[in-house]
């Protein structure tokens, strides 16, 4: 654990030190959090209804962590620091997990900041009296969901970054699975539903309407957790320092 934390801490320190130091980092966070706070601000109470905030917060790590994970190993390789890191006593597993966790912490901190920004925004513009707080289900789903999606993007991203020779290459490669995911959700699922016979589709819709949203959310989180664990195990197995020096 100590070695993982050492790698993780260094990663976070580098992130904060990048692009103009701590001040630059805070400005960057503030701008992005402001952008993410804009949607609830523009929708007022509508934002509070349904599962939208939870889904929204769960998706934030997909965007906020992608740059960080692409940089993890490909960045070290590009800046010629990877070999020196690999020549230390750090175990393979600690280097890999340290990178994943630093990306996860970054993404999660970003989500929390966005949640707080949204909450302030809603309370500023809502028409109803009193202070609005997220329902516990939204809050929990947002927190746990963002960890799991953060882990997903960190796992996939670090995996890709291991084999990429530059950060740009890693970013380009990382865009592909994200596009596949969004296309599958946006177009694949509706197309699949349309392709089903009418009676089957009706049956499916009835079944979906009968599902308890909480149970559905929990099921989704469990599925995501399983994917994350598989990805981490694959990543740990694949991370062998004797295969990482590409030149």
């Amino acid at each position: 654990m100590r070695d993982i934390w050492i790698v993780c801490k260094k990663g976070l320190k580098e992130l904060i030190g990048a692009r103009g130091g701590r001040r630059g980092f805070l400005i960057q966070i503030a701008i992005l959090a402001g952008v993410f706070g804009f949607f609830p601000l523009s929708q007022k109470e509508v934002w509070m209804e349904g599962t939208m905030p939870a889904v929204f917060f769960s998706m934030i790590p997909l965007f906020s962590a992608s740059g960080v994970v692409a940089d993890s190993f490909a960045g070290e390789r590009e800046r010629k620091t990877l070999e020196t890191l690999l020549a230390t006593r750090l175990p393979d597993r600690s280097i890999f997990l340290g990178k994943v966790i630093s990306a996860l912490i970054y993404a999660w901190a970003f989500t929390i900041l966005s949640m707080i920004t949204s909450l302030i925004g809603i309370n500023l513009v809502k028409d109803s009296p009193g202070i609005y707080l997220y329902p516990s289900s939204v809050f929990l789903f947002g927190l746990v969901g963002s960890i799991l999606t953060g882990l997903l993007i960190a796992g996939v991203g670090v995996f890709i970054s291991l084999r990429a020779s530059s950060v740009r290459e890693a970013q380009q490669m990382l865009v592909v699975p994200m596009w596949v995911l969004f296309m599958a959700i946006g177009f694949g699922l509706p197309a699949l539903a349309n392709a089903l016979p009418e009676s089957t589709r009706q049956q499916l819709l009835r079944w979906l309407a009968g599902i308890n949203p909480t149970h559905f959310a929990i099921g989704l989180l469990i599925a995501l957790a399983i994917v994350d664990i598989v990805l981490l195990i694959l990543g740990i197995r694949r991370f062998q320092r004797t295969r990482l020096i590409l030149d």
Partner: protein
Amino acid sequence: MSSIAIRTEDLTRDFPTVRAVDSLSLEIPTGIIFGFLGPNGAGKTTTIRLLLGLLEPDNGRGEVLGFDVQTEADRIRERVGALLENDGLYERLTAYDNLDFFGEINHLPTPDRRDRIRHLMEHLDLWDRRSEQAGKFSRGMKKKLALARALLHQPTLLFLDEPTTGLDALSAVALRDDLTSLVHQEGVTVFLTTHNMAEAEKICDRVGVIHKGQLVVEGRPDEIGAQARQPIVKVIGSGFTPEILAEVGEVPQVVEVIRSEDGLTIRLKEQGETAELVHLLVSRGAQVEEVHKVGASLEEAFITLMGEQSE
């Protein structure tokens, strides 16, 4: 501890288009500075990577500090320091944070870590600039910082891959001085790769020459020089007629006679007495003022060796 720091037997590593290290057998005792010399692409860096367990050999075996490079590489990395081809510094971190990170990696307790960082940075004249980002340092300062990082956890063996490459002459001399003083102070065994022969000759106790992945020769720098060199005799004087030159050229010991402004340069096949040559010159009427035996440097020996290997 074993008296042998590094031992390899037929160590071989292939890449898709080239055999980078070819049946390398070496034995390097502890407590010395060993220079591993060779032209670019000779296999020096690949050898270091194999010894650090960053690459797996295709054949043969290697031991560093008594540990197998394939099965106990983690134990090797715990005990060695490395300044590799690139200085490997985190340019966004400060100089101090760079060292602190590597001190933490090596589990140095915080007070010891602080003291050690200060000691090394002061020794290398970096302490006053400890809060600056490493990326703002000059190349020479980066190399110094990387040297401090390699020595931070007081390793028993230090790998240095071309430490002075890319530095101007003054910085290279300064780094070399820092390196030798620290190495002697800390009693570290050093495995140093370089293609700077003068550097190797000055600081190395033993050297090995590698070419196309194969060890060509290994020994003390003066031994290697003596093995490879063709001794030269410089004769200063006048009256060296073409007839005299022709006669000297026929002496079996002589390889070549070259006329120069102030006299002659005679290349010999091997070390030996020159009195006979001088006697011949004087007896034929030449006015000999001075005679010098010139020893070939390690650099000249290296060039000769590389030439022989290429033939």
